[in-house]
């Protein structure tokens, strides 16, 4: 795998055009960003920079990284919580959201630490959420754009969408997108039990079951060699299906 453009030492040539000095509008009061991170020291400073500069309070949950993720996030201006052991993205997200709620967040935006999201999508999500009176806004790369989305990944995501329709009874255009916005009330209505990667399907299903209004908002996903190397492949999806199946078995 080629890791073009990642140079933690220089820290500035990360292959992510959206980071190029486009200032975000003033953040909405009470909007917190929840960011799970596992071994993202190479990119997390750059991902955090525009968010912290714009004044968003960001909670980074370092999920037992073996690199300097926590220190980099701390230096970039985020609040950093550290899991002593690696629990999985779902568990890290739950910790981040609980902490945001504890701090009195009125809105919680989940945002991936690998730089695939565009910070400019956060105000878009917020506008759509408030305008449509929704409880949950999910980013959708298929309504928006995802340049460089590999065909195999597209197929996998479409399969996940079809699965969500069966599993969660919900018609969406995208699945497993890390960019989401919850109102405080919505975030308090569910608990993520899937510690690993199955949490994305779980969260949507729980929100749907709780009768929350879910909308999808176009967003941009930037696939870099780095984010592709960290994403879920075919084997990951089988794990997700297994996790969800075991969960069902257990209820």
């Amino acid at each position: 795998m080629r890791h073009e453009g990642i140079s933690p030492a220089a820290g500035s040539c990360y292959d992510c055009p959206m980071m190029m000095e486009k200032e975000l509008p003033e953040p909405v009061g009470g909007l917190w960003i929840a960011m799970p991170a596992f071994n993202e020291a190479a990119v997390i400073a750059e991902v955090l920079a525009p968010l912290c500069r714009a004044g968003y309070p960001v909670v980074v949950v370092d999920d037992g990284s073996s690199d300097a993720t926590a220190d980099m996030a701390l230096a970039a201006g985020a609040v950093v919580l550290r899991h002593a052991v690696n629990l999985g993205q779902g568990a890290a997200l739950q910790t981040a959201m609980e902490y945001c709620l504890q701090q009195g967040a009125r809105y919680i935006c989940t945002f991936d630490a690998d730089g695939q999201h565009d910070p400019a999508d956060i105000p878009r999500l917020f506008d759509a959420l408030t305008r449509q009176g929704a409880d949950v806004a999910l980013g959708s790369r298929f309504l928006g754009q995802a340049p460089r989305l590999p065909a195999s990944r597209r197929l996998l995501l479409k399969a996940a969408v079809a699965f969500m329709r069966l599993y969660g009874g919900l018609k969406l255009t995208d699945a497993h997108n890390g960019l989401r916005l919850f109102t405080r009330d919505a975030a308090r209505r569910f608990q993520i039990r899937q510690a690993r990667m199955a949490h994305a399907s779980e969260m949507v299903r729980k929100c749907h079951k709780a009768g929350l209004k879910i909308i999808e908002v176009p967003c941009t996903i930037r696939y870099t060699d780095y984010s592709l190397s960290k994403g879920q492949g075919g084997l990951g999806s089988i794990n997700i299906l297994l996790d969800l199946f075991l969960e069902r078995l257990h209820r």
Partner: protein
Amino acid sequence: MIIFELFLTAVLLLLILLVLRSSTLYTAYKILISLLLLVGIGFVYYPEGADRIAAFLGVRRGSDLVFYLSTVFLLFVALTSYTRARRMQQQIEALTRELAKLSARRKDDGDAHPGSGEEERR
């Protein structure tokens, strides 16, 4: 033949000892498993007994009966250990989460305040 019988008896007796000394099993389980193992020892010396019970239950041979019963037993063990592992995983998650929330840090706090884990890593 007598050597094999003695060997089997020794193994089963050892298992009974291990079960009775176990600190994680419930007493009811200990008694149940020990009784089953004792019956096993009985079958070593009196295999026709297993055949009779099997015939009574509608299974052709005693060894088949033992095989079926051990399959059911193994499945039961697998299920209970899965449940136990899951519960433990959830406890670890809860502990890790509480610990993480208690030791939240931000830049202005100073980089090395007590209990943050910073000292050990430096």
